[in-house]
């Protein structure tokens, strides 16, 4: 496999994404809501009479950190599903598949294009979030809560693994779907297990400590490997070409 070929596809796809309003809005809105919105929630809830106690604040901030994981699973589906279904809509797959590029190079390129912008947006928003959250909670806690192991694991391990999971799932769904919206809808189902973990932590069923996050990472890694195998099997160029064109 030649990474250079995959990169050519990736840069082309990223250029296309940047010209799609919905993709740009999604990539800008998420950092705004999570990076700025969540610290504002901390600020206003904390400013109310009684405010947030120094014992309640870390639980809340860990829960908020989990939003980056959900974002990392959700945002790539928007791009990954369009990346393949977009070729179907533009009827551009035939000349593309006639070019000297292998299926794995093509899929890797599309995966890179669906990975870099959302994960970049997540990282930027996380930096903003950590800085603002520290600013509004420093007085109550007496120290800067971020960075810590929890958000470190989420950003450096879980978020990339979840983004890969979501991209692989989208490839599988898109190879079968004929409509970008349908593919995106089905693609977002991948968020459900992560949302369930979040709810479980909120109701106290599980604790999002380092050990739990490592277990979740291991599970996602295994699912990633299985989905990678399935996504390469699902992408049958002849079937896609004869069905799509």
């Amino acid at each position, binding site marked *: 496999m030649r990474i250079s*070929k995959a990169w*050519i*596809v990736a840069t*082309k796809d990223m*250029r*296309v994404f940047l*010209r*799609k309003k919905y993709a740009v809005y999604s990539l800008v809105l998420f950092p705004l809501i999570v990076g700025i919105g969540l610290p504002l929630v901390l600020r206003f809830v904390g400013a109310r009479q009684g405010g947030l106690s120094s014992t309640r604040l870390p639980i809340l901030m860990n829960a908020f950190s989990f939003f980056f994981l959900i974002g990392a699973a959700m945002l790539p589906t928007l791009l990954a599903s369009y990346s393949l279904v977009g070729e179907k809509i*533009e*009827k*551009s*797959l*035939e*000349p*593309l*598949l*006639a*070019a*000297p*590029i*292998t299926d794995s190079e093509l899929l890797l390129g599309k995966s890179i294009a669906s990975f870099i912008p959302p994960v970049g947006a997540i990282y930027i928003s996380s930096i903003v979030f950590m800085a603002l959250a520290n600013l509004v909670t420093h007085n109550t806690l007496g120290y800067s809560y971020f960075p810590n192991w929890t958000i470190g694991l989420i950003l450096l391990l879980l978020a990339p693994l979840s983004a890969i999971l979501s991209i692989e799932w989208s490839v599988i769904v898109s190879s079968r779907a004929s409509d970008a919206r349908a593919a995106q809808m089905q693609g977002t189902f991948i968020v459900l297990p992560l949302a369930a973990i979040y709810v479980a932590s909120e109701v106290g069923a599980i604790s999002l400590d380092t050990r739990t996050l490592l277990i979740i990472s291991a599970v996602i890694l295994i699912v990633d490997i299985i989905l990678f195998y399935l996504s390469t099997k699902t992408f049958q*160029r*002849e079937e896609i*070409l*004869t069905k799509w*064109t």
Partner: protein
Amino acid sequence: MITVENLTKKFGDVTAVEGLTFQVEEGEVFGFLGPNGAGKTTTIRMLCCLISKTSGEGKIADYQIGKAADSLQIRKMIGLVPDNVGLYSDLSAFENLDFYGKLYECPEGRRRENIERFLKMLGLWERKDARAGSFSKGMKQKLALARALVHEPKILFMDEPTANLDPESAKTVRDFILEIKKQGRTIFLNTHNLDEAQRICDRIGILKTKLVTIGTPEQLRESLSRPKTEIRLAQVTEALVSALRKLIPNKIEVSGDKLIIDVTDPDKENPTIIAAITSTGGQVREVTQLVPTLEDVYLQIVKETK
């Protein structure tokens, strides 16, 4: 350059192409004519390694189609203009060509040079930065043609490149094909347009799932159409036609003031026919020996193979 032997493609129980055998020489323009569903697109897709063959053999230069190790080499040396242009509508004309130039590993300087050259040849250079999505159908087709050539392929496959284009755009595309023909490129052209095939192609194959016939346009015309003599009369009456039918055995068609008569040997039969007409009171105004067109040949073949 292209060698095909007994090539067959089946989709489930449906046979799209059966037992194709032909060769295309280097620098030759080979046209495939056939009705919708005849298997023209399927053949191009097999030759471009886009779909697998069911049986038979196919070679592009020294590489075998259907052999995984060879398919990348084949794709490197070919250019494809599919029936759907398949451009990225959000990218500019230049970006579309640049992307494919990079995929085909065309060095940057050469790539830029080729993009400029082909866009200028096709009258699109001024619109190089405009989104491909804003182009008319004809402009998109021209851009797809430039895309297929940006890496200077040895073989160019074109699937109905002038279909649904206005006459002016179709002429530009045809002239461009003739121009690249001069450069010695091998061209494989699928078309519905008989006039186009006659003007551009060195040889033509007529396909209807099976290859019905193959030859130069002249060979096809000569081998498959009977000559006809067209005689314009002062007046054509039923009495005259029925009297004539009793005198000569040839098949006679009436079209306005003209009689179109099938002949085998015009030099021998025409004087007899003229004599028969005058003897039955007909006044001959004009006699024309009709040369069968490729359309006559094509329609005859398609009718015969139904």
